[in-house]
C-alpha cells in the first residue's frame, strides 16, 4: 500500500507535522523539537525506502486526489527527485536536531511557531522537487519562500531589514517564474511537465516558449543567487537566526538549481537547450564569474557567517557551471556538487551556530586556538568541512570538482578549468585563515603558562545535540567522498536526462 504513495507521503507528513506542533504545544510544552525531529527523521527513512523503490522498480507517479494527469496535479518520484528529497530530508533532520539549544536561546517564546514554520518550509521545498506540474511548483515555491521569510526575519531587526530585501527580490523571482510559465502555457496549452515535454517533442520550441524559458531562468537565477542576482544573499545569511541559516543555506538555493535542471534538461529537449539556444552558455559563464567573485568577496569578509555566505555564492556558481557545461560529466558534477555543498555548508553553518551557543563572537579575528581545546569536535567538524570545500581528496568536495574539471576538459573549455583551479586556491586562502586561528597558537602567547597541560579544559560543546550533527556531517563528508563512485554509478547514472 505504501509504495505507490511514497511520492506524496513526505509532503503530507511535513504539513501534518507543521499543523500538529502548535496543537500539541497547548498540552505539552517542549514537545515541538521532539515532534519536528521525529517527523523529519521519519520522512528521511521513508525517502530511503523511496529511492530504493525507484531504483528497483522505476519512477512512481502519483495523481493527487485521483485526478488523472495532465488535467490533475501529478507528483513524480524519479531518480532525480528521489535523490534531492533524500538529501534534503537527511540534512533537515540533522539541522533540526542541532537546533535544540539554539532556537529557545535566540527566539525565546517563539519556539513552537518556529518549528511549525520550518516544517512548512521543508514540506514546500519537498513539494517543489516532487511536483510534476508547473503551476503547482509555483505555489510550493511561494509557500517555501513565505515560510522562509518568517524563519529568516524572526530574529533581530537587522534580520528583518535583510529579509525584507530578500522578500522583494524573491517575490520578483517567483513572479518572473509565473510569467514564464504563462508563456509556456499559452504556447502549449498544458501545465503538466510530462505532457509539455511530449508536446515540445512534436512542435519544437516555439518563440513563445523561448521567451517563457528566459523568464523562468531569470526567476530561478534570482532564487538560487546566481551572479549577478546574488545581492540579497549575504545580508540575509549573516543576520538571520543561526538555525534558519543552517536550514535554508544548504537547501533553498539547491532547490532553485533543481528547478532549472528539471525544466531545461527534462521538460525541454536538452539538445535544443544545449546546442541551439545560448541558455547553457550564459549559465556557465555567469557561474564562472560567480565562482571567482564569490571567492574574492569571501576573502574580504571579517565575519565568519558573511564569509560562508559569499562562499555559498561561489559554490552555486559551480552548480551553474556544471549545468552550463551540458555534458555527462558536467551534469554529474553539478548534481554531486549540489549534494556535497549542501552537506558542507550545513556543517559549516552548524559550527557557526555552535560558536554562538558557546557565546563566542562570529568575528574571524576573535577565533583562537583555545577553541580547539574547549570545542574539539566542533573545530574538527569545521576543519573537515573546510578541507572538503577546498577540495582535498578523499573528502567529498574534491570529487564533484573533479567531475566538473573532466567536463570542462571534454569541452576543451580552458577558461572553466582555470576558474575551477584558481577558485580552489582562493577557497584555501579564506578557509586556512580560519583553520590557522583555530589550531595554531599566536606566536606571542606562551600556551602553557596559566593553563598547565593536562588540566581539563572547560568544554563548551557539551550538549550532544550540538555535537552529534556536526560529527555526523564531518564523517558523512568523508563517507560521501570514499563512496563517490558508488553514488555516481547507482544514484546519478540512472537520472541522466534523455539525449545525454
Amino acid at each position, binding site marked *: 500500500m505504501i509504495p505507490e504513495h511514497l511520492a506524496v507521503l513526505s509532503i503530507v507528513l511535513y504539513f501534518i507535522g507543521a499543523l500538529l506542533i502548535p496543537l500539541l504545544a497547548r498540552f505539552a510544552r517542549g514537545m515541538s523539537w521532539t515532534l519536528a525531529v521525529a517527523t523529519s527523521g521519519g520522512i528521511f527513512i521513508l525517502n530511503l525506502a523511496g529511492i530504493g523503490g525507484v531504483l528497483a522498480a522505476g519512477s512512481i507517479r502519483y495523481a493527487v486526489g485521483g485526478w488523472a494527469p495532465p488535467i490533475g496535479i501529478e507528483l513524480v518520484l524519479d531518480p532525480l527527485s528521489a535523490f534531492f528529497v533524500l538529501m534534503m530530508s537527511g540534512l533537515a533532520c540533522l539541522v533540526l536536531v542541532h537546533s535544540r539549544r539554539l532556537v529557545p536561546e535566540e527566539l525565546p517564546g517563539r519556539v513552537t511557531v518556529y518549528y511549525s514554520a520550518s516544517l512548512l518550509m521543508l514540506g514546500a521545498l519537498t513539494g517543489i522537487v516532487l511536483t510534476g506540474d508547473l503551476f503547482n511548483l509555483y505555489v510550493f515555491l511561494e509557500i517555501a519562500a*513565505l515560510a522562509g521569510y518568517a524563519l529568516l*526575519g524572526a530574529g533581530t531587526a537587522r534580520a528583518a531589514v535583510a529579509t*525584507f530585501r530578500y522578500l522583494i527580490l524573491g517575490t520578483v523571482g517567483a*513572479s518572473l517564474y509565473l510569467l514564464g510559465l*504563462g508563456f509556456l502555457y499559452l504556447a502549449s496549452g498544458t501545465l503538466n511537465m510530462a505532457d509539455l515535454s511530449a508536446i515540445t517533442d512534436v512542435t519544437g520550441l516555439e518563440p513563445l516558449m523561448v521567451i517563457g524559458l528566459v523568464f523562468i531562468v531569470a526567476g530561478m537565477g534570482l532564487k538560487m543567487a546566481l551572479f549577478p542576482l546574488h545581492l540579497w544573499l549575504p545580508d540575509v545569511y549573516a543576520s538571520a537566526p543561526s538555525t534558519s541559516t543552517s536550514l535554508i543555506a544548504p537547501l533553498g538555493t539547491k532547490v532553485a538549481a533543481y528547478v532549472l535542471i528539471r525544466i531545461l534538461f527534462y521538460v525541454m529537449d536538452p539538445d535544443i537547450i544545449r546546442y541551439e539556444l545560448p541558455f547553457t552558455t550564459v549559465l556557465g559563464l555567469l557561474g564562472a564569474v560567480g565562482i571567482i567573485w564569490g571567492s574574492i568577496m569571501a576573502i574580504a569578509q571579517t565575519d565568519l557567517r558573511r564569509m560562508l555566505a559569499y562562499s555559498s555564492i561561489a559554490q552555486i556558481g559551480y552548480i551553474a557551471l556544471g549545468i552550463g557545461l551540458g555534458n555527462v560529466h558536467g551534469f554529474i558534477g553539478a548534481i554531486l556538487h549540489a549534494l556535497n555543498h549542501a552537506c558542507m555548508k550545513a556543517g559549516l553553518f552548524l559550527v557557526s551556530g555552535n560558536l554562538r551557543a558557546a557565546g563566542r563572537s562570529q568575528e574571524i579575528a576573535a577565533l583562537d586556538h583555545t577553541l580547539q581545546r574547549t570545542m574539539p569536535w566542533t573545530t574538527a567538524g569545521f576543519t573537515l568541512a573546510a578541507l572538503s570545500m577546498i577540495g582535498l581528496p578523499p573528502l567529498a568536495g574534491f570529487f564533484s570538482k573533479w567531475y566538473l574539471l573532466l567536463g570542462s576538459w571534454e569541452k576543451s573549455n580552458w577558461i572553466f578549468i582555470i576558474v575551477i583551479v584558481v577558485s580552489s586556491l582562493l577557497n584555501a586562502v579564506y578557509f586556512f585563515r580560519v583553520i590557522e586561528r583555530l589550531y595554531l597558537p599566536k606566536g606571542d602567547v606562551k600556551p602553557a603558562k596559566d593553563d598547565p597541560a593536562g588540566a581539563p579544559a572547560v568544554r563548551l560543546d557539551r550538549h550532544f545535540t550540538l555535537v552529534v550533527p556536526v560529527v555526523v556531517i564531518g564523517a558523512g563528508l568523508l563517507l560521501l567522498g570514499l563512496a563517490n563512485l558508488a553514488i555516481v554509478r547507482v544514484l546519478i547514472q540512472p537520472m541522466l536526462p534523455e539525449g545525454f
Partner: protein
Amino acid sequence: MIELIDGYYAYWFCFLLLTIGLYGMLLKRNLVKKVIGLSVFQSAIILFFIIAAYKDGSTVPVIDPRIGSDQPAAYINPLPHTLMLTAIVVGVATLGVAFALLIRIHGKYRTLDEDQLIERMK
C-alpha cells in the same frame, strides 16, 4: 510596426504595468512604496493571464443551454482564471509578510526611508 501594436493594446498595457512595478521596487527609497511596486508587478502578471484567456465573442465558462457543451470555442478558457485566484491569494500572503517585516523594522528604527535606515543601522 503597426501590426505589433494593433490588437495587442492590452499586452502593451500589461508590460507597461510590469515596468512601473519594477521601477517602484528598484528606485523608490521608501519601503512601503517598494511594497506597492511589488503589488503592481504581481497584478500586472495576473492581468497578463486574464488577457491571454480572453477570446473575442465567447462567453463565460458556465454551460449555456443555448450553446451546449459541444462547442468549447464558444467559451472562455477558465483555467488561467483559476490559476490567478491562487496567485492572488499568494500575493495577499506576500503582502502580509512584507508588512509584518515593515512593522518590525519601523518599531526598531522608527523610519521606513531606506537612506535613513542604512544610516541608523550602522
